[in-house]
């Protein structure tokens, strides 16, 4: 991580495009057989979704990744609070990002408000991440 965090600073954003293959591998890695993630007729005709639903915890993972990439080896995530408010669908491009809301130089604790949002700028997954920076000794 290059610059020291300052309150209000935005961390670099990342775009995520989840296709069918990634969606299959992700749910297989969890052992999640929920049809809304891979069975198009079921997702659209039975559950009434406009497409295959991106797994909620995958968006939770992207919240972690955008902060973790910013931290690099200079710190580690110690906690997160987030909720899945709006669904994303396979084929959509969503963006993850965040803003520093608190930084304690004495302890190295940094707090960020984070999000995954869609192309219509709707926040799908809002959250708060805390991390501890390794202090230069």
């Amino acid at each position, binding site marked *: 991580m290059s610059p020291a965090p300052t309150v209000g600073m935005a961390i670099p954003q990342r775009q995520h495009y989840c296709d069918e293959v990634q969606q299959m591998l992700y749910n297989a*890695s*969890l*052992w999640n057989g929920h049809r809304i993630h891979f069975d198009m007729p079921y997702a659209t005709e039975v559950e009434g979704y406009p497409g295959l639903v991106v797994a909620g915890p995958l968006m939770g993972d992207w919240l*972690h990744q955008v902060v973790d990439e910013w931290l690099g080896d200079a710190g580690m995530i110690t906690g997160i609070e987030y909720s899945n408010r709006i669904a994303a669908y396979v084929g959509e491009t969503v963006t993850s990002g965040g803003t520093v809301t608190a930084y304690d130089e004495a302890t190295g604790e940094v707090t960020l408000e984070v999000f995954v949002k869609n192309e219509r700028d709707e926040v799908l997954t809002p959250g708060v991440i805390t991390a501890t920076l390794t202090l230069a000794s």
Partner: protein
Amino acid sequence: MSGLLSEDVLSHIGKQSEPRREIVTRRDIRKYAVATNNRQAKYLDGDVAPPLFHLHLFWDVVPLSELSPDGVSIDSLLPKFPLEKAMAGGLDITYHKPIKPGDWLTATRTLTNIYEKAGRSGPLIFYEVLMEVRGDDDELVVTEKTTRILR
């Protein structure tokens, strides 16, 4: 309050799952890192697990015959609720220690709360599940509180 929650449903508060003990492998970490499109070498090489890896490690593995028709495994910790349509839920996770290949981890899940609230379009049921993941030395590795909403 409409009093949706019977004594019987509420009596499930405090119920705990059988502890589940699993081993962390480099291959599992690598699969999880690839599947989430992680870009950091330490995770892709499986040297250390990325945050949220505990979801992968402790997702319930049940026989196909025990999955519901929509492919979901039924959570044996939960009672039959009078409302069943799941809405967005929330997670509150604390990471105490990094997870590495070779670690044996044990997860215990507890149904810590069930309550109802009046929503804009009817009553809502909330329930909370606490999952504690510990190492063989009994030290906490991950604590995860899940809140789910039914309407």
